[in-house]
């Protein structure tokens, strides 16, 4: 048996190192985060609109959803939705006469994290829309704009400066929450790291390496969001 690879070699690419496994895990994490974030945003827009303009019924449903999701730990929610969601779906499929299907871990992760993110985005977007001076929307109505045109031309661009900091926070949270998917056994960055660390017994090296990957994702995103914020705030006075 060849000598065990030491510190720098274990992080190299190829059969002896775990560098490629870690990077593949990181790619998985980022894609889960991106898709879950998008799904969460879509749920968030629908939720915010229903909270602000919906009927009593839809408002109650949305309120229940955001309260429930935000009061239960993400990890527990992920466990419940992951196991209960797949089991319910299979039961429904079976009772409808189809065979049970194995649900892809990736898809389940995206759906579960998106569902959780949706509740938080709902609150961020609702607060941002409420921060728009009401006169701007009234003026748009007075011009005879249709509701869709008002949303596209007034509400959306006017709320973004209020929403971007909260949305940036949510993105940072979802990139870190992808690590929770490791607990249900899908190989993203955290689980890949743990497996590599367990195989080589070099726990410290691998967890620090994965930490650096997560940190660089965070720092790059922060840079991106600050550029984005400058862009949506163009023409506004600087905050003191």
């Amino acid at each position, binding site marked *: 048996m060849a000598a065990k690879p030491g510190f720098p070699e274990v992080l190299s690419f190829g059969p002896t190192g775990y560098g490629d496994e870690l990077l593949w895990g990181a790619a998985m994490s980022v894609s889960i985060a991106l898709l879950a974030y998008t799904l969460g945003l879509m749920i968030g827009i629908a939720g915010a609109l229903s909270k602000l303009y919906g009927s009593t019924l839809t408002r109650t449903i949305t309120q229940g959803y955001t309260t429930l999701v935000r009061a239960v730990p993400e990890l527990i929610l992920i466990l419940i939705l992951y196991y*209960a969601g797949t089991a319910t779906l299979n039961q429904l499929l079976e009772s409808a006469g189809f065979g049970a299907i194995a649900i892809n871990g990736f898809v389940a992760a995206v759906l579960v994290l998106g569902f959780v993110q949706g509740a938080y985005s709902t609150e961020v977007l609702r607060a941002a829309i409420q921060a728009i001076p009401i006169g701007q929307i009234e003026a748009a109505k007075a011009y005879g704009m249709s509701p869709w045109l008002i949303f596209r031309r007034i509400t959306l661009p006017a709320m973004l400066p209020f929403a971007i900091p909260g949305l940036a926070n949510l993105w940072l949270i979802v990139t870190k929450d992808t690590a929770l998917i490791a607990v249900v056994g899908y190989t993203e960055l955290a689980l890949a790291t743990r497996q590599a660390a367990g195989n080589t017994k070099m726990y410290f090296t691998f967890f620090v390496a*994965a930490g650096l990957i997560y940190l660089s994702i965070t720092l790059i995103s922060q840079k991106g969001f600050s550029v984005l914020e400058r862009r949506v705030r163009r023409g506004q006075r600087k905050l003191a």
Partner: protein
Amino acid sequence: MNIGIIKLLVKSAVLLLLAAVAIGLIYWLAAVSQWGWVAKYLPLLIKGLWLTVLLWVLSCIFGIILAIPIGLVQVTGPWWLAAIARGFCTVIRGTPLLLQLWLIYYGLGSLFPKIAMFYPDFRQDFMWLIRLDAFWYALLAFTLSFAGYEGEIMRGAFLGVPRGELEAARAFGMSPWKVLTRVWFPRAVRMVLPTLAGEVVLQLKATPLAMTVTVMDLSGVVRNRITQDTYIVYEPLMLLAVIYMCLTFLAVWAFSIIEKKVPQKR
């Protein structure tokens, strides 16, 4: 006219769907779900709840104690202390807590043999450290995490105290320490109080992570004991969700009382 009919249809469809979900849930709770295990595991669950609360409260208290100097040195400290504090906050806030927990639990543990190479008596002298329960590793990880997040908030609060008040305190001849304890710190604490409730709830929701390093907190009891012994999956998870929800609302309620007690004059 047409739109009215469509609206009515959509509304009744939503109501029907809700009713179906509610009936399904009630049917499941009444006829399908099993709750016999609760009696048998009640002592373990109570022990787990105690551990969860302990982990939560202690990590918040130690975290805040750590956060105060971390916030303060970023505002007034020498540049190298400020840089260390800022770096600490960035690293803690930029990496998943799960990873930090694993680094501390597995990583520190894996360093012990290396230390023993340089310090042969390490095993005898620090047996207590090697035998340490996973709980203490989890407490360390959660404390550092809370300190990182709260340190950033404390920095903002220290910065947010109006300069005039500090200058007035100095003009009265107060020593720097007195300025800190009589004016700067009390004012900063009042500023963070509203955000503190949210942070404390977030911390509660982070504690289930401890079950991944064999801590027998509430989630650990449910996942690593009850589900593995009885193969019952959903009912214990439901119970968990309800208990965490109760704890969340309890914390929010407690903080609303504290906030009312503290005078807020601006």
